[in-house]
């Protein structure tokens, strides 16, 4: 009963705030529109220098083939390797292909022809991918395997990012905002007035969280709408499963935000602690890099990272069409964390000193 009045108050305050409602609407839109384009790790238009020492029809054919590929952009054809290297140093080219003298002759003679590739690997994925692409072109006509790319046949990197981005937006809005909210009541002293009322810890905490749960859902739907409108993406799996998982996740992050704010005295402190935790959580969640590539100890750490589980759920349901029973282990973990953080939040809020 008391809860109703406290929730009412939170909404009125939110409505009065000139800045927050706008942030809640504009921020997800901006992120959804910009980030997928910015974070794409698709390597297009790699700048290539080709040193053709053979000057034969087949070396020229190879050059044309590379120039026509969507991955490469033929930048120049230097005479020597050292000349090519200077282009790399000046950051004018990313990859060098050297076709040796006698390339065609070897092929005609049925022997193995060889080429030399040098890639600027300062950006790791660029180097490795450029190398892979080039190898695919060089061997493509003769490749005998059939290759199937599941779930994302056009190899669109944005498809990979969009569901994960929704996770990030939910964390930023449903994690940071309740944390700042509670600390601001501490700073303005109103929390003291609430502390002398009979409102219980649970009621107060719930009243703080409820608005952000609702906001979380609004934002989720907004994100899903944008995913469809801009990227033509609709969930492969059931929307109900996404809602259910999101509910548990929102519970979890908002609880986490409250724990931080209950332990902080100033907004600046809450913000920094939150920022630091989120940075670690996001990096260790498999958002950008595969968890399996991590060393064993790091993989163990990711097991206690709640973000990892939700990120997996979003990608599984959205892209692979996984059903509820497929995501049961992840859901279980999320539920455990949600209960843990919320219990902690209720107990760390002290009415008495």
């Amino acid at each position, binding site marked *: 009963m008391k809860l109703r009045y406290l929730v009412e108050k939170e909404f009125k305050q939110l409505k009065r705030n000139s800045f927050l409602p706008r942030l809640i609407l504009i921020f997800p839109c901006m992120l959804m529109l910009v980030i997928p384009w*910015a974070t794409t790790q698709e390597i297009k238009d790699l700048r290539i220098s080709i040193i053709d020492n053979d000057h034969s029809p087949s070396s020229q054919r190879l050059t044309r083939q590379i120039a026509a590929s969507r991955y490469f952009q033929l930048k120049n054809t230097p005479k020597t390797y050292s000349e090519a290297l200077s282009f790399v140093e000046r950051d004018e080219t*990313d990859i060098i292909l050297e076709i040796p003298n006698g390339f065609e002759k070897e092929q005609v003679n049925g022997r193995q022809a060889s080429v030399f590739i040098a890639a600027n690997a300062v950006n790791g994925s660029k180097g490795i991918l450029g190398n892979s692409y080039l*190898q695919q072109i060089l061997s493509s006509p003769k490749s005998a395997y059939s290759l199937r790319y599941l779930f994302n046949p056009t190899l669109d990197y944005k498809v990979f990012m969009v569901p994960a981005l929704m996770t990030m937006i939910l964390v930023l809005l449903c994690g940071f905002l309740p944390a700042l909210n509670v600390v601001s009541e501490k700073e303005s002293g109103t929390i003291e007035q609430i502390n002398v009322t009979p409102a219980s810890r649970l009621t107060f905490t719930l009243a703080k969280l409820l608005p952000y749960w609702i906001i979380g859902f609004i934002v989720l739907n907004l994100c899903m709408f944008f995913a469809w409108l801009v990227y033509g993406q609709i969930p492969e799996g059931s929307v109900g499963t996404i809602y259910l998982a999101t509910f548990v996740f929102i519970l979890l992050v908002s609880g986490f935000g409250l724990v931080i704010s209950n332990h902080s005295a100033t907004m600046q402190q809450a913000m920094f602690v939150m920022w630091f935790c989120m940075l670690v959580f996001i990096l260790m969640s498999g958002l950008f890099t595969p968890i399996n590539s991590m060393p064993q100890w790091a993989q163990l750490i990711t097991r206690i990272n709640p973000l990892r589980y939700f990120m997996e759920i979003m990608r599984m349901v959205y892209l692979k069409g996984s059903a509820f029973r497929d995501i049961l282990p992840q859901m279980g973990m999320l539920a455990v964390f949600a209960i843990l953080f919320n219990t902690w939040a209720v107990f760390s809020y002290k009415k008495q000193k």
Partner: protein
Amino acid sequence: MKQFVAFIRKEFYHIFRDRRTTLILIGMPITQIILFGFAISTEVKNVQTAILSNSPDIETRHVIDRLDASEYFTIKYIVHSSEELNELFRQNKIELAIAFPDDFNKQRLDTENLQIIADATDPNQAIIRSTYANGIISTALAELRQTSPGEHLTLVHSRLLYNPRMQSTYNFVPGIMGLILMLICAMMTSISIVREKETGTMEVLLVSPMNALFVTLSKAVPYFVLSLLNLATILLLSVFVLKVPVAGSLATLLGISLLFIFVSLALGLFISCVTRTQVAAMLISGMVLMIPTIIFSGIIFPIESMPTVLQGISCLIPARWYASAVRKVMIEGVPFAFVLQETGILMAMAILLVILTTRKFKNRLE
């Protein structure tokens, strides 16, 4: 001079009395270097693989053994129907599958029907994984056929420049440097100045005989010191722990870093001039500085593959130019002449910010 010292001492008290924030400020570079250096990588490793095969013959076994023996792949499941395979993919248990045709050995090792199935939700990983699997399978088959592997193939000798062991380490260090310096110089400085406005102490400081601009500047000094400390931490960690050498001239590197620190401080002062509340300063530096810095400094995302519009926007982000210059000087080891463009742009940004800040600076309350 005495006033100046008193000011700086006071500012250090503020910083060090807030233990949690101090800990984070000092711990942040260390954590990030460890995470990026040791935990996070895009290397293909332990790819969870399933095999679909209904003919447990020696040939199939040989290919599977070869795959499993490589550090890239871990064979987790051997299944007998494509439904099972789909199930495993949907449960996120495998990332790659190799489907052998039913009578693999009888088809004289014909590879026509051999299929590599990759989970392409992460497209780059899918491409690299399948290229690797391809390579291992063809070698294995060649061994079986006892012929040379590349009968018809072109032999490729490849070499990765500057980063021969393919560690992603090399790439993120410059970005992290940009991020941390930006965080301390711009965000911390602006918040700490605005806090004085909000609590009302600024009112007294303004009426004091000290010059107002001088008051503001002296608030930036401790953050300058702190950022130097962090810069040193990052460089030492990357040289001695990550074994990333400083290939170019250390002096050039430090010079550019100082220039960037200057730009960030100016940015912090500018934000503090145009905002009135801590929350506003926090959100502006968070949204307008930190997120773009993470995205556009090339820590994770290559700028080249962004759409032109975003590449244009990235030109406005100081950290982009700094990271690019550091990458060149520290990792590629090129001389100063090659980073003239970056230096020039940073210099121009510094001058512009200083002009804007002096314009916007107020000697009075609003």
